């Protein structure tokens, strides 16, 4: 699952092979199912272990390294590339993305982006951090080819120096447009660095993939599907189990 980014850095956003994922996913499912036959603590333990294995498999992470920290490239950068196909025209997608204030509508970790100045090339970004805090930086657009490509990079002084670009390519047939996104960032050292890295980088590939899926659903359907708030006969610990399965909270 290694990917080569535009500047040639090798990263592996997912560190378990498909076979490993299938095996651990299967084990996870098995443990969960076994847990359903057990009463009391042993059942809860089996269920939890199973859910951990399954979610590890789902996110492409082996269990051991899930407990450790972020994987970085040799020069200590994190780089990810992801793509999605959306049933909209190149121009619609370019126009939507070029207004950076739209980005927090589908990028989950962003709280806001404020475009500054007349040409819209400079912007101020606020990202969510743990315990209700935020991380902020300024960025500028470095390339802007209407209908084709936008690139941006954080300005001097950012806590987490980062850059990214997005390309819009017409998809074959009537599939619409392929959006290809690449992000590179260099988490700082120290405690704040670790916090930020966890926030932005623990599973950067998966996070960008999820962001792009949200963008697709926002533009194609107008909303994310949800089961949050639907009825069930769940009690106690089973609510937690359901939450482990569901991307969005389920009650």
């Amino acid at each position, binding site marked *: 699952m290694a990917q080569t980014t535009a500047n040639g850095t090798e990263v592996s956003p997912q560190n378990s092979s498909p076979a490993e994922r299938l095996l651990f996913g299967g084990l996870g499912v098995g443990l969960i199912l076994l847990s359903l036959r057990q009463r009391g603590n042993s059942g809860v333990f089996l269920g939890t272990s199973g859910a951990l294995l399954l979610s590890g498999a789902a996110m492409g992470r082996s269990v051991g390294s899930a407990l450790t920290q972020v994987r970085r490239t040799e020069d200590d950068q994190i780089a990810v590339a992801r793509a999605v196909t959306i049933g909209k025209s190149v121009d619609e997608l370019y126009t939507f993305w070029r207004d950076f204030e739209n980005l927090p509508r589908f990028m989950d970790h962003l709280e806001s982006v404020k475009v500054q100045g007349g040409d819209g090339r400079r912007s101020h970004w606020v990202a969510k951090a743990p315990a209700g805090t935020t991380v902020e930086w300024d960025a500028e657009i470095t390339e802007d080819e209407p209908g084709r490509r936008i690139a941006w990079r954080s300005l001097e002084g950012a806590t987490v120096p980062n850059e990214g670009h997005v390309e819009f390519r017409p998809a074959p047939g009537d599939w619409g447009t392929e959006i290809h996104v690449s992000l590179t960032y260099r988490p700082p050292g120290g405690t704040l660095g670790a916090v930020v890295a966890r926030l932005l980088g623990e599973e950067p590939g998966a996070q960008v993939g999820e962001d792009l899926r949200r963008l697709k659903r926002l533009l194609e359907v107008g909303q994310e599907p949800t089961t949050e708030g639907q009825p069930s006969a769940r009690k106690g610990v089973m609510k937690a189990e359901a939450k482990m399965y569901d*991307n969005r909270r389920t009650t």
Partner: protein
Amino acid sequence: MKAVVWQGINRVQVENVPDPEILQPTDAIVRVTATAICGSDLHLVDGYVPSMVHGDILGHEFMGEVVEVGPEVRDVRPGDRVVVPFPISCGKCWYCQHGLTSLCDNSNPNPKLAEALWGYSGSGLYGYSHITGGYAGGQAQFARTVYADQNLYKVPEGLTDEQVLFLTDILPTGYMGAENCNIHPGDVVAVFGCGPVGLFGIMSAFVLGAGRVIAIDRFPERLDLARKLGAETLNYEEDAVFERLKEMTGGRGPDSVMDAVGLESHAGGPGGVADAVKQTTRVLESDRPHALRAAIMACRKGGTVSVPGVYGGLADKIPVGAFMNKGLTMRTGQTHVHRYLDTLTGHIERGEVDPTVIITHRLGIDEAPHAYDIFKHKHDGCIKCILDPWADPKDHAPTKAP
């Protein structure tokens, strides 16, 4: 409201749960007037489809009357009588726009689970585990339905609930199973499994021009019904199925073979026992693929294997050598229910297809545990069981869970 709830492997109960509410502007609430138990529900109850959680409401075959719609619903109004296709279509993605609604890109809220197991996620499904979205099912007095304009299908005047209920799943599933057989006029089609989907597959194969249909099962009442629909039958407990199929087709083998059994097939012999043992771990092998193996072996050279039966995960010893060397084609998939609704409703209105013939049991929702029990074990001649969510419990004796 009352709802049929999954409470663990082999534990189904009827519980009182809160009524569903409109959660998104494109939702509609349906007062369920009829619902059915499906063979796929047994895979959930038996614990072979992962990611069920205690308290999940079961049921993906249901219909009723719309009682409330969200502010963005345009085409559906309270009072409309509707059937609810079990796969959920967003109506907007490439798959939905091309009639492949069970492959919808946007309707599964938990696609990462499905992607881990299958590489990509299909659509959300009602009442069918968290891999397919975790949506509450419709074996209940009310159900929340989503993307109402894209999914709720208005029932024409003059058709009864029983005539249209199976449009939600098994009738289109049998039809797509037959369509996937790639039938040319006069072809011989073999159907493994004479449960509801197999029976509708037989009906549909004739509608699509099959000359002969050979149906395979072991339960006399199912084989009787298959014969009534015009099929020749084989009882796999009495007949050597492969040899008989070959002989009945002049040594060629059937032009197409349908596996309408899926992941809990029954087979004797060392292979069947090995599957059953491995499957109890839920890890080494999740699916018992005996019918699929038999279908691949029996099909004539260059023929087509159609798989409407449900498979969930991993199956061993698929005869891929036979598949390749005989030049077979395999076609499968969760049913794209929406694309068949107009066609099949027309067949029902004109009396060319009578879906009610498979109904053997009509029970109140309070009897759901008993209904699951007799359907699973084929007791009491049970072929298809439908539930009335509003039946007075006093009319029905309480029964114990399976």
